């Protein structure tokens, strides 16, 4: 007789391991929860549509009025059939351009997402070329909220996050030629973003790079350097004692083999053994690892 019903398959040990979520993944998930995500409102495409209609409307009107004016002032004669043809071509081309721009902008608005996470702001945008811009908080200089004429018509805002970039990019960005890296258009409520960014900046970012110099006052720095100098002079009498040779012989490793394992020239090991060289901590750790002992056993400061 055949057994009916499901056969129980015992879980593999590895399956269990995967069931309990790893610490890193858990941490990432909580980070994901804390972060703020959003996209831009569809008013953006309407705003851009109005802009393009205005611009192309002006251009086509100028072209056609020039043709009419030219005929009236008898600079040239435009036959009436040509006039109709011109009307159709100019308005047709303008209409096509407006349509393409509208389609492009609605795709742009649909693809635009931003995310304010614990470490940085991530802005994803682009229709043909996809761009993912990551802005770490330490590089943000200021946040500007722009509300232009068209923005006001559609009740949207543009948030510009100015960053410390290359000088050329910064100069052109100041003149308004290049958009800043952090450019988020078509926002209904920009103050949420501003608040969130500021919150994240105070909550998570450490001292921004470069700031450690600014905290220092010049007289403090001078004093600090003076003290360091005196102390270093005092420390010159100190000597680093080492028992590297004994430990090496105990572990039955030749100096050459040790040098190879640690990845330094043999001479370095010899200098170390003679106490003529102050190694870096990383090197000391490597030697301690090979000889299987503590750093304190290996070296002593006398």
């Amino acid at each position, binding site marked *: 007789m055949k057994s009916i019903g499901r056969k129980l398959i015992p879980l593999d040990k590895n399956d269990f*391991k*995967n069931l309990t*979520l*790893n*610490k*890193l*993944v858990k*941490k*990432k*998930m909580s*980070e*994901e929860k804390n972060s703020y995500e959003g996209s831009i409102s569809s008013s953006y495409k309407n705003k851009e549509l109005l802009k393009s209609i205005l611009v192309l409307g002006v251009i086509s009107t100028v072209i056609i009025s020039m043709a009419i004016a030219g005929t009236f002032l008898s600079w040239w004669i435009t036959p009436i059939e040509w006039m109709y043809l011109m009307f159709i071509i100019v308005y047709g081309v303008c209409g096509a351009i407006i349509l393409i721009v509208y389609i492009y902008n609605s795709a742009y608005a649909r693809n635009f997402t931003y995310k304010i*996470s614990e*470490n940085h702001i*991530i802005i994803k945008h682009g229709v043909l070329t996809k761009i993912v811009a990551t802005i770490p908080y330490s590089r943000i200089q200021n946040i500007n909220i722009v509300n232009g004429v068209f923005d006001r018509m559609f009740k949207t805002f543009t948030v510009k996050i100015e960053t410390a970039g290359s000088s050329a990019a910064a100069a052109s960005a100041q003149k308004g030629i290049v958009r800043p890296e952090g450019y988020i258009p078509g926002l209904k409520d920009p103050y949420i973003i501003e608040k969130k960014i500021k919150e994240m900046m105070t909550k998570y970012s*450490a*001292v921004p790079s470069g700031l*450690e*110099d600014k905290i*220092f006052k010049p007289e*403090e720095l001078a004093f*600090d*350097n003076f*003290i*360091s100098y005196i*102390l*270093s002079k*005092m*420390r010159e009498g*100190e000597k*680093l004692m080492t028992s590297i040779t004994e430990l090496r012989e105990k572990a039955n490793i030749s100096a050459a*083999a040790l040098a*190879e*394992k640690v*990845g330094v020239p043999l001479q370095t090991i010899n200098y170390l053994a003679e106490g003529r060289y*102050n*190694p*870096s*901590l*990383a090197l*000391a*750790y490597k030697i301690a690892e090979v000889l299987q002992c*503590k*750093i*304190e056993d290996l*070296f002593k*400061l006398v």
Partner: protein
Amino acid sequence: MKFKKKIASRIKQFREELELPQLELAKLVGVSRQTIYYLERGSYNPSLTISFKISEILKKPINDIFYQEPVIKDILEGKSLAELREIAEIAGINLEKLASLSEIDDEELTKEFREDTLIKIALGLGVDFKELFEKEVEN
């Protein structure tokens, strides 16, 4: 196969326990404050004499203050969950296994991961393989 490691420190934690400002510690050790700042950030490999001095002042053994941390741990922590998923997909492993890289030791690394998987992970992270892992020297 071994993890490439860098020196990380708990100076900040111990310093705050003793309520010792950065500048004071710097003066006691005889280095500038920037040095302490970089040491706390783990972006500086100190000389042994400085390490001894710090361990003397903080009254903790060197092993407690400075510890070796795989470089990959730092990089994995800097990635978002979506990016980690992508990398796991590139390497052909699941997310939990990729994340376990931040916890396991050298021995487990050799057991759990094949070299080609590690190469793919490095590729996904956009980092050179040699910056994350090193091969052991044969005797």
